[in-house]
C-alpha cells in the first residue's frame, strides 16, 4: 500500500494501532500562549460558511449584505418536512438581526439562511429538526441556533444531530434558556451554549466554569438589523448567540483546521475571565 493510500485509510474508531501513530501526528503550530491576538486578530470570517437557523433573513439589508443561499423548511403534502427555496424572507426580523450581528463581526463570511419559522406552531418541532439536519448535512462550519424546544420527544434526535455536527466539524452555537425550564439543544455538551452578559462590547465573552451554559456573550441592548431595512435595539440570549457565532467564525477563519474540541479549548483560553485579552 502506498503512503498516500495509507494516509487516506480511515483509522478504526475504537483503537490506535502502533503503526498508525504517525498518521494522527498533528502539524498544527501552537503558540507558547494562546491569546486573542493569535486566535482572531486580523480575521474577517473569509472562507467560513455560517448558517443562520431562524426566521429567515432579509438579504438586502445594508447591515447583512449578500447571503449565498436561503432555504425554508415546510411540511409537505405527505406530512413530512421538506426543504425548498425561501420565497418569503424573514417572517419576524429575528433572523435578520442574528445575520447582521454575525456579518458585523465577520464581514467576509459566507451566510446561508434556513427558515424554520412561519409554517405554524404545530409542525415547528419536526421543522426545526429537519432544518438542523439539512444544515448538518451541508457541512456548515458554524450553525447559529437561537431556538430551543421543550419537547422531550425531540431531545434524542436533537442530541444525535448535535453529536453528528460535532464529529463532522460543524460548530453548533445554541441559545441557553434564561427561564426555569428544560429545553434543548443548548444543554448538550457537544454544542456551544450561550447566555448574555450586559457589557456593550461585541467581542467580550466569558467562560462559565459552572455549566450547562458554557459562555456568556453580548446580549443586552444590542443594536441590530431588522426587517424593512430598519435598525432596532434588543435584549436576549438569542442575540448573545450570534455574537458567539461571529467569534467562532473569526477563529475558524484564521485557524480553519481546528476541530470543535480544539475551538472550544481556544475559546476558553481567550475568554475575558481567563486572560485571553492580555
Amino acid at each position, binding site marked *: 500500500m502506498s503512503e498516500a493510500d495509507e494516509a487516506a485509510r480511515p483509522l478504526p474508531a475504537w483503537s490506535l494501532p502502533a503503526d498508525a501513530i504517525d498518521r494522527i501526528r498533528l502539524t498544527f503550530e501552537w503558540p507558547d500562549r494562546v491569546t486573542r491576538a493569535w486566535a482572531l486578530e486580523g480575521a474577517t470570517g473569509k472562507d467560513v460558511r455560517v448558517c443562520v437557523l431562524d426566521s429567515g433573513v432579509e438579504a438586502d439589508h445594508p447591515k447583512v449584505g449578500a447571503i449565498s443561499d436561503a432555504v425554508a423548511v415546510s411540511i409537505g403534502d405527505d406530512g413530512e418536512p421538506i426543504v425548498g427555496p425561501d420565497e418569503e424572507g424573514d417572517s419576524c*426580523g*429575528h433572523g435578520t438581526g442574528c445575520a447582521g450581528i454575525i456579518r458585523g463581526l465577520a464581514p467576509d463570511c459566507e451566510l446561508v439562511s434556513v427558515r424554520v419559522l412561519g409554517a405554524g406552531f404545530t409542525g415547528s418541532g419536526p421543522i426545526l429538526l429537519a432544518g438542523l439536519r439539512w444544515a448538518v448535512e451541508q457541512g456548515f462550519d458554524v450553525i447559529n441556533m437561537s431556538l*430551543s424546544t421543550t419537547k422531550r420527544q425531540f431531545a434524542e434526535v436533537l442530541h444525535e444531530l448535535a453529536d453528528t455536527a460535532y464529529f463532522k466539524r460543524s460548530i453548533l452555537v445554541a441559545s441557553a434558556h434564561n427561564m*426555569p425550564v428544560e429545553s434543548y439543544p443548548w444543554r448538550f455538551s457537544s454544542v456551544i451554549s450561550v447566555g448574555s452578559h450586559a457589557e456593550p462590547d461585541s467581542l467580550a465573552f466569558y467562560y462559565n466554569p459552572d455549566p450547562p451554559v458554557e459562555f456568556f456573550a453580548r446580549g443586552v441592548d444590542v443594536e441590530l438589523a*431588522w426587517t424593512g431595512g430598519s435598525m432596532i435595539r434588543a*435584549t436576549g440570549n438569542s442575540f448573545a448567540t450570534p455574537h458567539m457565532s461571529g467569534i467562532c467564525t473569526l477563529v475558524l477563519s484564521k485557524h480553519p483546521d481546528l476541530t470543535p474540541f480544539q475551538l472550544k479549548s481556544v475559546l476558553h483560553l481567550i475568554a475575558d475571565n481567563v486572560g485571553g485579552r492580555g
Partner: protein
Amino acid sequence: MTEDGFRAAVAAGVIGSDEAYGSLLRSIVEVARAIFGAQRSSIFLYDEEADELVFEAVAGEAEQGLVGSRLPSSTGIVGWTLVSRQPLVIEDLTQDPRHAREVAEKTGYVPKGLMSVPLLFDERALSVLQVLDRPQRPGFSLQEMELLGLFANQAAIALDLLQRSRRAKAALDTGGGDVAVVARVAAALDELVEGDRAKALRLLEALEDVLRQ
C-alpha cells in the same frame, strides 16, 4: 374515569372555571404591567386546534373590542416567541413599518418597545405574554429579564392549573353523567357556611355508609 380525573372533575365543579379563567388572565396582564410600570400588557393564548394565537386579555389603555382576534402561530415577534420559546426585549419597533402595520391591525396599538416571553409549563408552550412600552431607563438590566422569566413561570403554572380544570369541566358538561352530579354536590358544599356545611357533611357520610353496604 380515573381517580385523578375524578379529582380534577370535582375540582372543576368547585372552581367555576370560566369566570376564574378570565380573572386569571386579566390578573396576569395587570400584574405584568404593574411590575414593569408599562403602558400596556397583553396575553396571546395558543389555540392548538386552530394552530393560531388568540389575543385574550389586555391591561392598560386599550381597545377591548380587539380581544378575541387571531394571529398566525409562527410569524411576527409573538410567533417567534412561541416557537423559539425564548424571551426577548425589543426597542424602536416603530422603525419597522411592516411590523407596525400588522400589529396595529390585530391589536389596535403600535408599541415603541416590547418585552415578549413565552409561558411554558412542563413541555408545553401555553401562551405568549407581552409587556409594551415600559419606561425608558438607561441600560436595560439582566435583572429585569430574570424578573420577566420568573413572573412568566409563575403565570404559566397558574394558567396550566386552570386549563386543566377548564378541560375537566368541559368533559363534565358534555356528558360527565354520575360524576357531574357529584361535582355539583361538591360545588354546593363548598359554598355553604360552616354550620350548614357540617350538617351537610354528616348527611353525605350517612349516604356513603348506605352506598357501601
